[in-house]
């Protein structure tokens, strides 16, 4: 007599099934495969002090930026200004250390993140209140922030000698063999993932991306959430900028150039749908990890690392084609289930 859809499946099996099919798992497997392949060809890729350290260190900064970017994309927006934000905050970090000797490292961290937050707030305000698409606004602020960066930098450059040793240690040091920066990135990842999954403010981001007008009807505070998403993205980029200075020691006006497209690519590869409502920060972080690890593995596998970007391009296109096929198949499956019971 009843006509409805699937009866609730066995919860554990269903959960396990979802995990196995999840994009994140696929990316993780791909990472393992790439690392394995590279290690087989050149064991020092992983089995050497520098090898293991670089494996984890290289993607750390992009991971942080990608996490922030994913949060914005989930709300059906995009943030093209993150590269410029990284550049600005990296230079701010260097300048603070150079101009204010003896400044506590914590203060610099706070300043960098705060600057990033403010820059993100500007983006968010323009998007949320002026109702202009994020693509356009952040395209503009990308130019503005980069321009300010270059103007401020002038012909100067921050050098490693300008930065306190302890700070530099952060950038290259390890804890039990694991780079400190990587641990920091993981910390950010774990918190972001927890927040998105378990707090109302996190879940509402997904709702807003899934159907913005329904979100309004539900009474969700869309403006506030979108604003917050951009502040988070800016803050993440700000943090990455500070870490950039710690990692590389040298900061020119070029820092972070092009990072926005890499972060978007990482998120898309990691399963974050460009139209929002779908995806996790785990995926974005894993996507960043995969991207940069492939770049490092290419020369070892024998592919000229000039082909890096082509590989990135193939991955991105592959990811969105896969997403589309999977979404269509799932939709058809769900509709068919419904039809069976009619």
């Amino acid at each position: 007599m009843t006509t409805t859809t699937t009866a609730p499946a066995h919860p554990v099996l269903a959960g396990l099934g979802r995990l196995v099919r999840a994009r994140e798992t696929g990316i993780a497997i791909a990472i393992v495969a790439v690392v394995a392949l590279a290690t087989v060809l050149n064991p020092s890729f992983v089995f050497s002090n520098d090898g293991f350290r670089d494996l984890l260190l290289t993607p750390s900064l992009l991971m942080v930026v990608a996490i922030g970017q994913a949060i914005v994309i989930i709300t059906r927006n995009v943030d093209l200004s993150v590269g410029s934000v990284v550049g600005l905050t990296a230079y701010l970090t260097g300048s603070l250390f150079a101009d204010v000797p003896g400044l506590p490292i914590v203060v610099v961290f706070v300043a960098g993140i705060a600057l990033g937050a403010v820059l993100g707030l500007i983006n968010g305000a323009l998007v949320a209140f002026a109702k202009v698409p994020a693509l356009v606004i952040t395209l503009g602020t990308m130019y503005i922030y980069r321009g300010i960066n270059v103007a401020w930098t002038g012909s100067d450059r921050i050098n490693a000698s300008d930065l306190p040793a302890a700070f530099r240690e952060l950038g290259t040091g390890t804890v039990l063999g694991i780079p400190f920066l990587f641990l920091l990135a993981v910390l950010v990842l774990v918190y972001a993932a927890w927040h998105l999954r378990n707090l109302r403010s996190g879940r509402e981001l997904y709702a807003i991306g899934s159907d913005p007008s329904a979100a309004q009807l539900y009474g969700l505070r869309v403006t506030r959430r979108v604003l917050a998403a951009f502040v988070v993205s800016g803050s993440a980029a700000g943090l990455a900028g500070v870490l950039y200075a710690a990692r590389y020691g040298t900061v020119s006006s070029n820092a972070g150039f092009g990072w926005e497209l890499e972060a978007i690519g990482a998120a898309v590869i990691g399963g974050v749908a460009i139209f929002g409502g779908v995806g996790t920060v785990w995926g974005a972080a894993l996507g960043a990890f995969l991207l940069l690890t492939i770049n490092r593995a290419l020369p070892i596998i024998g592919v000229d690392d000039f082909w890096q970007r082509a590989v990135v391009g193939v991955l991105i296109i592959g990811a969105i084609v896969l997403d589309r096929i999977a979404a269509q198949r799932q939709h058809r499956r769900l509709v068919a289930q419904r039809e069976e019971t009619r």
Partner: protein
Amino acid sequence: MTATSEAAAPRTFAAHAHPLWRRLLVTREASIIGLLLAVIAVAMATVPNFDSPLTVTYLLREIAPILLIALPMTLIIITAEIDLSVASVLGLASVVTGLGVQAGWPVPVAMVVAIGVGALAGAINGALVTVVGLPSLAVTIGTLALFRGIAVGLLGTTAISDFPDAWTDLARTNITGTPVPVIIIAFAVLALVFAVLLHFTPFGRSLYAIGLNKEAAAFSGINVGLSKFWLFVMSGTVAGFAGVYFTLLYNNARGDNAIGMELQIIAAVLLGGVSIFGGRGALHGVIAGVLLIGTLASALRLAGVTSDIINVLTGLLLVLSVVSASFLNWFHQRRVAALGRRRGRSPGTSS
């Protein structure tokens, strides 16, 4: 709702609600053109050497690729899509030109092949968007990386720069007696073609419909997918041509030629009054937008202002133009509602 049918007197209709001057002057395109003229005037008055022929030549030479690619980009954005891969296609075409010449092909042959590669790249974009059904933003972010990657992969760090003088000179010559580079002729022809296509053909009409309401467009017999496909092919082809020109102008084929140019192009198109939402915009505004950014950059550079400030200004212009468009739209909606109350026309609600 109550209504009575009117008496049977035949209705007359004015073609336009507003007089011609208003239709021409109170538009975004007019304001950009006005701004352009204002900037030119101020620059000529205050910046030394701005009106020298050499300045004009360098300015036009440099922005020619942007001018060219902005044409098909306008049409693409009007249909509510986007093509972020244009600069990568330009780079790829540049590399192909270089490789072809290096392999001993005659320059015209290398050019044709390079343009063909551009068309193919556009077809790939078009197929992914219309056949597979993927969002163009995501697709072209991917092909931006892919095409650039292939370009860099093919050439590595080397650059090819031994192009025959005859051709590099051609790229740099001006029209005799003027400071205008020859490439502008090609641009003028293309601009005319695209302007006619967009504003005076059924195809052009259909593009606006697609951008505003693609469902209604499909119901009107418009083949939305095919139209968009051709637009991407056009974009790739023109980007290919721009790549050839770029290579000859700078006598340099490199994998990373014109990195980042796509954003300049899009910024100029949006500045020119094209709505990112689709369905709105005109070519004269876009051309003015490109010229505005170029002129501003050139004038500021001559005035000794560093390039970063130019970037800041470009960004500010872009942000201001879209925010003001949004504001004007909001204002217009309120005015329509108020007029509706006064004149008795309902603002489109049905009960």
